[in-house]
């Protein structure tokens, strides 16, 4: 895997090449591709991680589609395609084309994914530079070969192959055949002047690229599997787009790949469902009527409420209603918390000693009872302040009945629950399940009121 430094070297190479040999249009496009592809490389190491397809990875992992590229560089798609075609012909950019079905029922569209294959890019650039150099080198040599000599006196030109007979007897100079004047190098020819430093200029101007290429020689450029990348990309896309991205004419490998991922997604769904189920179960259990509501703690028989809950569809609605009423209690608990505080405050003002003792007596009881106690204590407030008179009246008889039951069994005070249950049981024959629940609540609350009064 290429390190960050290697990547910057490769990127620099692309940038140098594009700026040296291409128009700004090409430069912009190539820059985008390096930018994009560096990102691709950046998550290339993770390989399979991409399969799980988090959106962030999708964001950077992208072979640039040419229409997207057009958007990115702010040029018409057609123009970008022209640029890409040129770059592809120059073998700097590779384009992977395939048919894609954008939506169900549409004809597959040919989409191109542009990318830079860095190993081939380096080779192409290397070859180009070498070819350029040898071309200029050859030209230079030929020009020098043909440069020849000229007589400054009469202007006669001699080719290098003519010089054998021009050597003067001392062997130090060439002599013009016509005027016996000493020949000079034919350096005036424009082609010679131009070509003289052409190679030097080329070397100077391609110095950066050659340096970059030397650096890239030390880098092992990872191979790029376009099919695989695209398969992964397609999957990632699936997660992003609600309508999905179906691929036509793809190889079986990518297809299977895709299926595999869908399976993993399904699994995720199942897990989520399961978790939700668990939460719902917990909630249901939490919301279920306490056992003592459904079953007599004394006789062990089903109460009317319990019968209704476990009974047929006809009593189901009633049961639901009952559930609803029990559900509401915690809310009301909060609602009347301030009232409760006031109540405690009043207790405190009346007698601090007795107030201190109150929790102790309650402490003897079970926690469940504490909770119910609180519920019960709300009711005086609600019964006095909010409950319509009719409901109060309706429960009055029951309360009376409960009171009577209470009087019948004075020792039941210690344990509120059995007493309450018993009373509920007594009330049941006369009232409906819902009414019974309310009655039970009211009755119990009356009891606790009594308790406090006793304490007081």
């Amino acid at each position: 895997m290429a390190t960050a430094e290697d990547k910057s070297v490769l990127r620099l190479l692309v940038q140098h090449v594009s700026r040296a040999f291409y128009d700004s249009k090409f430069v912009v496009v190539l820059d985008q591709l390096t930018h994009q592809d560096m990102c691709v490389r950046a998550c290339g190491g993770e390989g399979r991680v991409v399969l799980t397809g988090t959106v962030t990875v999708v964001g950077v992992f992208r072979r640039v589609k040419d229409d997207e590229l057009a958007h990115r560089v702010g040029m018409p798609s057609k123009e970008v395609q022209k640029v890409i075609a040129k770059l592809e012909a120059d073998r700097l950019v590779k384009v992977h084309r395939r048919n894609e079905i954008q939506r169900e029922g549409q004809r597959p569209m040919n989409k191109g994914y542009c990318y830079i294959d860095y190993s081939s890019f380096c080779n192409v650039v290397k070859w180009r530079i070498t070819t350029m150099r040898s071309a200029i080198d050859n030209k230079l040599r030929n020009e020098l070969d043909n440069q020849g000599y000229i007589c400054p006196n009469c202007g006669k030109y001699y080719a290098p192959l003519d010089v054998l007979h021009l050597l003067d007897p001392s062997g130090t100079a060439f002599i013009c055949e016509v005027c016996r004047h000493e020949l000079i190098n034919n350096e005036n020819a424009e082609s010679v002047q131009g070509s003289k430093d052409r190679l030097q200029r080329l070397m100077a101007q391609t110095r950066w690229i050659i340096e970059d290429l030397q650096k890239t020689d030390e880098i092992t450029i990872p191979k790029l599997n376009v099919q695989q990348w695209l398969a992964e990309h397609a999957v990632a896309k699936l997660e992003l787009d609600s309508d999905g991205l179906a691929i036509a004419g793809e190889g079986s490998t990518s297809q299977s790949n895709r299926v595999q991922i869908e399976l993993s997604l399904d699994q995720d769904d199942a897990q989520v469902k399961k978790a939700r189920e668990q939460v719902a179960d917990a909630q249901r259990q939490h919301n279920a009527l306490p056992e003592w509501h459904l079953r007599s703690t004394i006789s062990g028989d089903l109460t009317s409420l319990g019968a209704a809950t476990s009974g047929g569809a006809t009593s189901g609605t009633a049961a639901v209603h009952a559930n609803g009423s029990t559900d509401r209690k915690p809310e009301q608990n909060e609602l009347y918390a301030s009232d409760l505080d006031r109540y405690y405050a009043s207790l405190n003002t009346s007698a601090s000693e007795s107030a201190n003792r109150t929790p102790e007596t309650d402490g003897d009881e079970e926690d469940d009872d504490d909770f119910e106690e609180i519920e019960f204590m709300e009711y005086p407030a609600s019964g006095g302040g909010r409950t319509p008179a009719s409901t109060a009246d309706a429960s009055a008889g029951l309360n009376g009945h409960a009171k009577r039951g209470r009087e019948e069994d004075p020792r039941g005070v210690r344990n509120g629950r059995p007493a309450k249950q018993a009373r509920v049981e007594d009330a049941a024959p006369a009232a409906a399940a819902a009414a019974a629940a309310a009655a039970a609540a009211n009755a119990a609350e009356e009891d606790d009121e009594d308790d406090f009064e006793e304490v007081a």
Partner: protein
Amino acid sequence: MFFVKDLHHTILLHPSYFGSRMHQHIEQKLHADVEGTCSGEYGYIIAVLDVIDVGVGLVSVGNGQAEFVTTYRAIVFKPFKGEVLDSVVTSVNKMGFFAEVGPLQVFVSAHLVHPDMKYDSAAANACFASADQVIEKDTHVRLKLVGTRVDATEIFAIGTIKEDHLGVID
């Protein structure tokens, strides 16, 4: 490059040579005619190794001379463009230097000498010199021919030493 080549040569023999020593005479004439000559096609004919066939003499009508088409085997030397050869420097001047490859004259222009080697006219012998190498008369130089020119009596070539593994040799 030196080759062994079978060549043909046509000899016109005066009737006065017709006789028992005719074949010897033909061979002598063949040697004298072809050795040391030069053609564009075959290069220099250095030496005749063997006379393969003197052929059948055909007396031409009118002057009575016999025409023999002889076949002989010879060592020839033909330079090729692009060929690398070892040479001996014969003269140096500011335009470059001349070197010989056997019978072949080669001129190496100063442009085709490595830029490190500068012409030094102040030295006792005119030479091209760099820090560690000198090209002067009688220096052995490995050069590469870049062009040849064939005249009636000789071949002239231009060469370069401005490439890898060319230049002064020990």
